[in-house]
């Protein structure tokens, strides 16, 4: 027992980050599953992180309430944003959401209450491992069940062909917006959890690089089901730890693995188990995510 406790204590931060990254990967999975490439989730994560930390600091809000407030704030911002940007498609949508993320970052850099460039320090470490893994379990279960529901099928249909989906009676804009807002909510929740793990946050924690990292977790893991993003986040968070002896070459390995996955496993590592189906999908030109 002691050995396990030691192990957990030594690696508890790594476990926390794996879980948080898995939540983030699921947040972007939601929109990807509906065929929308958005890169705004780092910004929503920031909103969750700052809102919950500030509420705790200045108003003494209880932790769960602060987390929920951060998530709601992100969702409230995501709704009008989604209505505006969903006229755009493909790379335009990606760039617009990325620009939104940068606007948020710049606002954080300029606002006194968020600590400008220094960010916030001394955030109390309120997040317990079980908070993270309970959230992850609930979210993964709900998304798994939703995937097989009418709504999940509608998202898949929109991903495959928006015009044809509308003709089947699917309110395309509403479904896309729902995926986007739920994704924002989830990213902000993860952001709140992560702020209370890392003690300090600053605007550059949520920059372009973070947005792309979240996307990479989801895409490398795979979009076909909720296991993919969780797997992707786990592998890509744990990999740097495993590669610690080769620290200098770590990014080179990661780059090579990423490249290999995108070229040889277009639907993600989760499809290693069903290569045959992937090949069939590839033959009809429907193998990829977005």
């Amino acid at each position, binding site marked *: 027992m002691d050995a396990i406790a030691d192990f957990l204590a030594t690696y508890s931060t790594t476990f926390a980050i794996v879980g948080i990254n898995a939540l983030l990967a699921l947040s972007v999975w939601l929109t990807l599953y509906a065929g929308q490439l958005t890169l705004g989730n780092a910004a929503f994560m920031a909103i969750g992180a700052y809102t919950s930390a500030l509420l705790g600091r200045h108003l003494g809000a209880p932790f769960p309430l602060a987390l929920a407030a951060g998530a709601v704030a992100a969702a409230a911002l995501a709704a009008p944003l989604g209505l505006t940007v969903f006229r755009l498609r493909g790379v335009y949508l990606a760039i617009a959401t990325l620009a939104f993320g940068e606007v948020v970052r710049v606002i954080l850099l300029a606002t006194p209450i968020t600590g400008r*460039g220094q960010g916030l320090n001394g955030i109390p470490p309120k997040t317990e491992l079980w908070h993270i893994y309970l959230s992850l379990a609930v979210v993964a279960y709900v998304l798994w069940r939703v995937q097989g529901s009418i709504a999940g099928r509608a998202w898949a249909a929109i991903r495959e062909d928006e015009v044809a989906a509308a003709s089947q009676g699917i309110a395309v804009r509403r479904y896309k917006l729902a995926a986007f807002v739920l994704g924002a909510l989830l990213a902000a929740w993860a952001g709140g959890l992560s702020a209370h793990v890392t003690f300090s946050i600053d605007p550059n924690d949520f920059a372009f690089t973070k947005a792309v990292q979240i996307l990479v977790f989801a895409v490398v893991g795979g979009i076909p089901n909720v296991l993919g993003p969780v797997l992707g986040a786990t592998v890509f968070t744990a990999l740097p730890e495993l590669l610690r002896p080769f620290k200098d070459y770590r990014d080179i390995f*990661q780059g090579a693995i990423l490249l290999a996955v995108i070229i040889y496993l277009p639907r993600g590592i989760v499809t290693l188990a069903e290569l045959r189906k992937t090949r069939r999908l590839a033959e009809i030109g429907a193998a990829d995510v977005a």
Partner: protein
Amino acid sequence: MFEQLYNAIFIGSIYALFAVGFALVFSVLDILNLAHPTVFMLGAFAALFAIATLGLPWWLAVPIAFVATGLFGILLDRIAFAPLRRRGAPPLSAMISSLAVTLAVVRVVELRYGGDFITFPAGTVPSFLIHVGGATLEGVRLAIIGLSIALMLVLTYLVRGTALGREIRALAENPRAARILGIDVERAIAATFFISSGLGGLAGVLLAFAYNSLDSRMGLPLELRAFTVMVVGGMGSLPGAVIGAYLLGLGEVASLVYLPAELRDAFAFGLLFLVLIARPQGLLGQRPADRI
């Protein structure tokens, strides 16, 4: 005031050289090449290698950097894009594969040169001042402005006036038709990448010369600026990218006068966001009709 305008045109020229290559690849292959900032950085380091390690003068280092990054562009395409193209993968895949290359290449550079700012060996980079009226200006920047404009003219001629340019344009228009017309598509793509990356690398050398400073992450700020320039000008439009680049340069320098330093980036991204919402086709772009 005059000095600020001068700097705006200088930085606009760098943006233009960088963004024109980015837009060229997008217009021909619909790829957002996220490794383009890495190419920019590689250009600067190729010049450093030529000057510091090979002991060559700066005027030889510039063309060497151009060719080296151009060749790297072709390699990049073979490794990161060609396999995806063969499969008909969507644009997202190419964004991620180019990112993977970036991750690895930045690290390779850091293994050799470290992650901090470095400078060229003393006295190896040209530097002189010119006096116009009451103002003192850095002469290298004027040379860079001149060179950039000349290169843009050459590129325009290349794309509009030569057989290779015709092939590239045909490819951008319709890859299937281009193939049927007997165009060697892979060769035209290789040429596109050579030009695009060569220009991107050149932009890197020139900026590194102007500031006498380079580092492994120097391309990063240009990534989102290239998006801005391209969206403002119209996705994939080369003249649009040039106009967008100078507009961004002017806007940034102007906003520095009125905004605090932390908000330096706000102009570029605010502009990007507004244009996407109000006029997603950009200044010179045409909106493809949504066909059913």
